[in-house]
């Protein structure tokens, strides 16, 4: 059950990051720079570099999660990134900003639904990270063999 959850959770997270990256990459980088600017947290000189690199980083992270390599570390990175996104969104929402979420490309206003969605993704990333860092359980049949020996 735990193994199945880990695989499903990892694949779901990976897919989410790939979809998010694709939505940003298919539009001009200026569009994502606009979303970043609306949040008002980055200095002006950071807008272009972040808008140009973050979608590629999301794509790489998504593919890494899907492939399963260094699962625990990539799951941890995903949880940290989603935690950062979620806290920035909560801050902007609390400030009453009527802005685009920018999460999956433009045209989606920040609101309770986007916050719920990102919280769910963050919860999933945390769960996958916690389970990945726990020692793998010994399968029942292996335990029986150990007992016989």
């Amino acid at each position, binding site marked *: 059950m735990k193994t199945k959850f880990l695989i499903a959770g990892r694949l779901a997270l990976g897919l989410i990051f790939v979809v998010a990256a694709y939505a940003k990459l298919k539009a001009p980088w200026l*569009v994502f720079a606009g979303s970043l*600017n609306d949040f008002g947290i980055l200095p*002006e000189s950071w*807008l272009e570099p972040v808008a140009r690199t973050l979608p590629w980083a999301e794509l790489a992270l998504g593919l890494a999660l899907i492939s399963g390599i260094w699962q625990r570390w990539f799951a941890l990175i995903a949880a940290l990134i989603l935690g950062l996104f979620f806290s920035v969104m909560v801050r902007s929402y609390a400030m009453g900003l009527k802005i*685009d979420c920018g999460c*999956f490309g433009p*045209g989606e206003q920040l609101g309770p639904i986007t916050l719920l969605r990102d919280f*769910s993704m963050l919860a*999933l990333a945390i*769960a996958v990270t916690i389970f990945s860092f726990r020692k793998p359980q010994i399968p029942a049949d292996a335990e029986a063999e150990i007992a016989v020996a």
Partner: protein
Amino acid sequence: MRISLLFLPACLISGLVLFAQTPAAPKAATVKPVSTKAAAPVNYKEMGNPSARVTFEAYTDYECPHCAIFFRDVMPQIMAQYVETGKVKFVHRDFPLNQIHQWAQLAARYANAAGEIGQYDLAVNQIFKTQDSWSRTGNIEAELVKVLPPGAMQKVRELVKSDPNLDASIKKDVDMAMNVDHVPSTPTVVIVSKGKREVISSALPFSVWKSYLDKKLAE
């Protein structure tokens, strides 16, 4: 085991909400060929080299605070470095958000009336510059009187009262905003280059526009 059961609904909610919310074709960043239905702007709303390879179209609402900031902080530099040097053509389009801004349409009428008599830039800049004052009272004329000569002001006054073309010009821009560019908010800039329209809905700082326009012009 129990914890994993708790997080499974979270996973499902994530997936469902994600796919329910992800727009199939994000409207605000649609990049598409120039439509033949695109409304030609009235001439006084166009500035710069008519044959420039890149066009910078700005949809604004005169009562929108971000538009006023955009016109104060960004547009003078765009005009000086790109439009007046012939690199980029500029088109100003009206997109009054009448549901939330009661004087936006009237302000656009005043600006366009000034445009009809060759005073468009002066009027537009004054309307944005004094937005704080007239947006409380609707007395746009009191601000324009300060910059327009008395004769010109009289003509503007008459045009605002009786010229039906002013609303028609605004409607053309609004139709284009709604049907071609799907403008979500103001200010929205459309970069037109190589037959494609890129819709960017944000009041980005000049340095970012500069970087983007320089790359567009170098393509």
